[in-house]
């Protein structure tokens, strides 16, 4: 048999491959860690898969982008809250969790309150489109227009790649 030749190089650093790695890793974690999950509870599982997808996106992008940072922060907060819930007494945890939730949510809300672009029609006459975009892209609420467009571009790129990864995975699973 002919000796196998060198493979045509897949760029190991390409966004797609990194995303795929990370996503599979996260999915695996879902399956191994949270094994209490019933297969019938599709909603919960799909939610976890979605979180895993966003987490892998954010992880691959790292701290370079504001949107990835905000996603990572959200995930860590959720993890912290979950840990608090587990550790403390049920009633007490409810109170504390409530406090934590309030604290964190107010932190997140304050920037939007002071957002000068909260006007429905801002001076450039965009009819609040910018505000909409800011809400869609995570972590882009307190940002000037230039940075917002930058973040959006990167977010779109990453989202599109993630969608592609997920689609191929779905195809793979559906055939096996």
């Amino acid at each position: 048999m002919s000796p196998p030749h060198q493979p045509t190089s897949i760029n190991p650093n390409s966004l797609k491959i990194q995303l795929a790695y990370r996503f599979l890793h996260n999915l695996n974690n879902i399956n191994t860690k949270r094994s209490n999950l019933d297969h019938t509870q599709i909603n919960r599982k799909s939610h976890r898969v979605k979180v895993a997808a966003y987490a892998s996106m954010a992880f691959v992008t790292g701290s370079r982008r504001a949107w990835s940072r905000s996603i990572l922060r959200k995930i860590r907060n959720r993890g912290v809250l979950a840990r608090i819930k587990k550790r403390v007494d049920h009633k007490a945890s409810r109170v504390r969790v409530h406090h934590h939730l309030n604290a964190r949510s107010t932190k997140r809300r304050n920037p939007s309150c002071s957002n000068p672009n909260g006007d429905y029609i801002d001076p450039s006459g965009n009819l609040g489109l910018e505000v909409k975009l800011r809400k869609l892209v995570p972590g882009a609420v307190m940002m000037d227009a230039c940075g917002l467009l930058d973040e959006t571009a990167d977010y779109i790129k990453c989202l599109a790649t993630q969608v592609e990864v997920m689609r191929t995975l779905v195809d793979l699973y559906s055939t096996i």
Partner: protein
Amino acid sequence: MSHELRNDPSLLERQQARMKWQQQKQQSFFNASDHTMQNMFSTSMPLAQTNETFTGLLSGHNGLDIVKPDPGLMEDWAGFGDHLSYGYMNQNSIMPLGADQSFVHGNSVSVSTSVTVSVSPKKRKADKGQSLEVVTEKEKKLKGCAEEGDSKITHQNSNNSDKATGDNKSSNSKGASTNTSSKDKSKVSEVQKPDYIHVRARRGQATDSHSLAERVRREKISERMKYLQDLVPGCNKITGKAGMLDEIINYVQSLQKQVEFLSMKLATVNPELDFNIDNVFAKEMFQPSTSEFQGLGCTSETPNPAYFQLNSLDQVYCGLDMGINSAEMALRRSLTAPMSIPETFMDSSCFNQILPSAMWDGDLQNLCKMEFEQGTLIPIQSHQYTGSNEGSNLKMEM
């Protein structure tokens, strides 16, 4: 004196521009006056400060067209008149701008650039490219430099306007009125100074720093909008900012909905264990060219190629934080199956080497099929697997 040197170019260049403008009308007279100017040059040679500049200017002559002085300018100099050295500095202004930069050189690059811009909006000579056309079409390449330069421009403008005499101003305005057309075309000079970056204040636009900075910011935004247009499919026809934003928002929303939908699909489609197997395959696929696969292919005489492979797989998994558990689980499951399983491992590695890039083209299904097909193509290597299977089993159970 060096300070004067820096400030003077603005006036000098303005005068120079004016000279060029008049030059078109009175060519012969310039020739006549040129001799007088040269005489003046010779007399001014002993001046210490301007010595170098003169030599520089004179050497700068060679490549460039000489702007002919006109007597009107000399009158202006008389107006400045008290400082003889200043008069000589004015003479220097006759020299082409390329030479000017020889004495402005180094330290005040940005200042001189801003100065030229202060001149250029008011006066522009289309024909003689050299002196004023330092202001090149670098408008689009500006980022931060522009804004710095802009502030300097405005300062220079204000300074120069304060210093300039009345007739200068009037002449400038005259020049401006006649030269507006050439300004629009914004021709590039023969003498291009790559160091200099300006913003050009276009016709009919304010030249103050705020509006220039605004313009730079707007251009940045439009640049990013163009990039987004490439990203978002089907946006080529939409030109308005609002329309583009709308499209972008729709696209982001659709992508997020797709993620949600696909995650639901993923949640329903796959049972748990399949993840591990697929991870195994996935990891193998993604390894571009690792030593273990080469070892498997080339050295068919190595004692335990399967063991070798299992080890390498383990390393891969550890490196990827998969944990050995998942790998072992998958491998145990696979090893309980008969002979075909080592072949599938081998097959996937071969497949990896043969069709690595086919994966992302949606040929994952083909991959699965090919695994089984290739089992028949590699009978030789499977023998080794049979030989070393016991060894690998022992390793596995450890």
